């Protein structure tokens, strides 16, 4: 049996836990997988890969007009120049919010998400309520997040139906003139990069 140092603390194992344990044991015994490599993958998602990467990308785009142009021109290429821990695959497309247009990203068919720059998707993103409603009632979904946009703002929903991955470039909050890139990073939330939220206001951060 494969070793499972990661198992739950409780004494009773759920049916799912047992089933997943059986799956891992069979795959290990067959020589298909190496549990030590699985540990490293999990550790990477728990400690290294997450929305802080996307936040850095957004803050740099706010701070550096040349980088912003490069990002909007070829997302994968521009993000690769930053050399962060997670490697960015092809097909990343950055989409810019403007006063006239707000972008929001969904995957109605499964739960495609830009893992390389945002980490693993939250449960709500993968849930039936979000996947079903985002394309039909995006303003209603935004209301679930406490976001109300002007009635005149165009809402543009991007359904990720292929291997293209979308990163929303939110608008830089006003009152941040002269801020450093590091300071700007604090304003960028995960939801702002999905389009279900807005960046923090300057008075919400230190």
């Amino acid at each position, binding site marked *: *049996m494969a070793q499972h140092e*990661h*198992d*739950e603390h409780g004494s009773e194992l759920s049916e*799912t*836990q047992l089933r*997943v*344990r*059986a*799956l*891992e*044991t*069979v795959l290990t*015994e*067959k020589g*298909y*997988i*190496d549990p*030590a*490599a*699985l*540990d*490293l*993958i*999990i550790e990477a*998602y*728990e400690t290294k890969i*997450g929305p802080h990467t996307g936040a850095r990308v957004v803050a740099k785009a706010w701070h550096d007009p040349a980088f912003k142009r490069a990002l909007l021109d070829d997302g994968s290429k521009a993000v690769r120049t930053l050399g962060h821990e*997670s*490697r960015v695959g092809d*097909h990343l*497309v950055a989409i810019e919010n403007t006063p006239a247009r707000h972008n929001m990203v969904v995957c*109605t*068919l*499964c739960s495609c998400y830009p893992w390389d720059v945002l*980490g*693993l998707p*939250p*449960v*709500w993103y993968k*849930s*039936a*309520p979000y*996947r*079903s409603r985002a*394309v*039909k009632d*995006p*303003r209603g979904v935004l209301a679930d*997040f406490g976001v109300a946009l002007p*009635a005149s*703002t*165009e809402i*543009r*929903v991007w*359904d990720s*139906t*292929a*291997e*293209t991955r979308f990163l929303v470039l939110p608008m830089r909050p006003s009152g941040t003139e002269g801020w450093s890139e590091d300071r700007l990073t604090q304003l960028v939330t995960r939801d702002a990069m999905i389009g279900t939220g807005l960046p923090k206001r300057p008075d919400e951060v230190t």
Partner: protein
Amino acid sequence: MNGVHDMGGMDGFGKVEPEPNEPVFHAPWEGRVLAMQRAMGYAGAWPIDASRFAQERLAPQAYLGASYYQRWALGMERNLVERGYAETDELASGRALRSGKPLARKLTSDVVSQGMTRGSFYRQAQAPARFKPGDRVRTKNIHPPTHTRLPRYARGRLGVIELVHGCHAFPDTMAIDKGDNPQWLYTVMFEGKELWGPDADPTVKISIDAFEPYLDPA
């Protein structure tokens, strides 16, 4: 296939409920499932579209009743059995009863970072792109019983080509082991009213990424 996975535009699922300070995984087994999937992908056991198709073929009540990572595990079990990597008695007993099938490579600790890098889906074009940005297109009204990435809500609808993403492996054939079959990929934008009727919010526009075989000129 017209499954429950194709949720765009359905009513009745309720509000979106964000979870404050959500953990990366809600239980350790979720991470194991995710990592196993990555490892089997790296090994070349089956393409990502076959993972999606296996989940789509779960019974609707099973699909809706399962969490995201439970669906992954169920889909993985299905691909393992269907492709001869394991048998049901092995999965049930939690022991390998027969030796494994050869795989192209194995994800070991020294190659984890390569294994976590998303592969490219770009493929050599077989023909020039048929459409360019600004072209009006109508999506086909097709209902294949197998995997497709053309959602039901966007079939038979008039849209405009907005972006051309190059030539990509075609999921519809990849999922059923009929090869890359490279196709041009486009972002196609639709007015809300075109999809949801005259009462739709006039400020809403929706796009899908559509492969060329899904599109006719309009």
